[in-house]
């Protein structure tokens, strides 16, 4: 047990406990919760939220925030849609999907990089910078699309959003790969270490020889890149792009990060607990939907859940102190 705890961290065990609790609770109350169909539904809904959460994660670890994630994803999606539509729409060849996706990734990374540069070199607060970027991207997107949606994409996009490989939803595979890359990035690379150090204490990090400006720029560029991946997935899932798709998910991504034990002030955060937190949130939401609960209630439950976790975390932190005293 101790070895397990050491390997996974108390955070993960606690969250798994929560997950089991949620599953049992809904298993008993919602008749169709423990069915393949429901888990399939959860697996299809999780990835777009998950990818956006990953995009939110690195800036939070570095002590910042990226409020522009949803609109960066939308703009990246628009880029892909534009490339496909100008090259035949429904009949666009697969090569154009590749080109469009590359374009989307570049646009996403660029949006992130601009934010990163401003944050790193002017020292402006990330909330302000990303808020400005969010407003800019939203306005730009609405101007370009006139608020309408772009649809009519080739059929081969459909499996990406709704297909199965060996019984596993394709979006889930995409998310798993992205989460794995993020995990490696944060735990095994110099950049991940630098991001954490910047979050802990940016000045100390700078004095110890970390190129903080370059790291900050890279952090937001990577965040933008992940937004673009989410944007491409959303194109495939909804078969259309519109500025504002997924708008409601922005704060949920922050919630998932905090629930996953990421320090709101930066300096600590891991991918695995965040992924489990995402599963908990999605299970809660799907379970409440199965029960036919009011949607506003499920938002309230999410909030209540977060407060509960905070309190429990505080309690858990008190126990070892008592023993010592």
């Amino acid at each position, binding site marked *: 047990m101790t070895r397990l705890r050491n390997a996974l961290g108390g955070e993960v065990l606690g969250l798994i406990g929560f997950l089991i609790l949620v599953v049992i609770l809904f298993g008993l109350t919602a008749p169709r919760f423990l069915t393949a169909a429901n888990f399939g539904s959860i697996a299809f809904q999780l990835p777009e939220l998950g990818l956006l959460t990953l995009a939110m994660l690195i800036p939070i670890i570095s002590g910042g925030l990226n409020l522009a994630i949803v609109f960066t994803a939308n703009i990246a999606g628009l880029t892909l849609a534009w490339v496909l539509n100008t090259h035949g729409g429904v009949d666009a060849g697969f090569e154009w999907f590749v080109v469009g996706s590359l374009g989307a990734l570049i646009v996403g990374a660029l949006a992130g990089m601009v934010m990163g540069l401003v944050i790193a070199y002017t020292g402006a607060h990330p909330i302000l910078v990303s808020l400005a970027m969010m407003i800019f991207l939203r306005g730009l997107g609405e101007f370009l699309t006139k*608020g309408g949606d772009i*649809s009519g994409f080739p059929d081969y996009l459909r499996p990406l959003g709704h297909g199965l490989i060996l019984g596993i939803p394709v979006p889930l595979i995409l998310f798993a790969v992205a989460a794995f890359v993020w995990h490696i990035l944060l735990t095994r690379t110099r950049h991940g270490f630098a991001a954490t150090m910047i979050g802990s204490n940016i000045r100390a990090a700078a004095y110890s020889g970390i190129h903080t400006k370059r790291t900050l720029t890279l952090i937001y560029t990577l965040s933008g890149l992940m937004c673009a991946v989410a944007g491409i997935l959303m194109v495939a899932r909804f078969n259309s792009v519109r500025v504002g798709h997924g708008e409601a998910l922005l704060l949920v991504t922050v919630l998932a990060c905090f629930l996953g034990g990421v320090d709101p002030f930066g300096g600590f955060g891991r991918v695995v607990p965040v992924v489990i937190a995402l599963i908990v949130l999605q299970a809660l939401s799907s379970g409440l939907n199965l029960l036919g609960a009011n949607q506003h209630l499920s938002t309230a439950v999410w909030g209540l859940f977060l407060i509960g976790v905070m309190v429990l975390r505080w309690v858990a932190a008190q126990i070892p102190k008592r023993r010592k005293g």
Partner: protein
Amino acid sequence: MKRRSALLAGVALSVALGTGAWAQDKPTMGVVVKIGGIPWFNAMEMGIKEKGEELGVDATMIGPTSADPSLQVRAIEDLIAKGVDVIGVVPNDEAALEPVLEKARAAGIKVISHEGPGLKNVDWNFEMASATGFGEAHAKLLAEKMGGKGEYAMFVGSLTVPLHNAWADAAAAYLAENYPDMKLIGERYGVAENVDESRKTALDLMAANPELKGFLAFGSQGPIGAGRAIEERRKTGEVFVLGPFSPGQGREMIKADAISGGFMWNPAEAGRVFVTMGKMLVDGTEITEGTDIPGLGVVSPDVENRDIITDNLVTINKDTVDELADLGL
């Protein structure tokens, strides 16, 4: 170890209970609307519940917390998982729903939509008002109030709600043809599902265009917001606000002339029609030319586009508003 096996037993037990409890033969139905917690869809929920009890259908309404199409997609995914017999939907964005509705129909679920004439993956879409009839009715009334001349502005719920835009098109076309002295100011503003945005936009427009004499607001919160702006500027009786709105919410405003009037259909009736049609689909009742659907009347469906379009307009004015508001609208 002991604790862990107890846990496993618990999971096993709940699996057993979970699969066993799903033995009921009442047809189930879930209706996903644009947004929850606003009067229009509260009334629709009332209609759905009422008709559900009457016909013996287990019908529930799901109203997302914001008008974001991705939330509707999520709600429908959950309904498919729930294994309902019928899914009803009032779409925020038609295109975004096509893939998930296709999935629903592939799972053998019947799909009914309302206010979504362009949707392809549906069994039927029904309308309580034809786009032209509804748009022109408002246009005629606006022309009458404004004396056939002057500037007016137009709000729609969102630029992507096709129906609101179809109304706006019909109204603008009618006015352009019949009242050449009436002039549309600016573009269409996609604010009419939000009171505050409608109010702000109306205030801005009045400040920028002193000659503005009328607002046509297609979207349930648009007339309310624009009406508030008129009250704030003390322009009641000079600037006319028309559009469909919830009578209970706008009762005092129409009596104070902040809103001049409008037409609507009864969302509770639409809710009832959802359940009625759902039951018909589950029972295998064919809907053809001349079928009498309670709430819609005798219909002549457009079989090719799967549309059932009717004109069941209700006038909202000083005389009718109390009666409508007392219905809970």
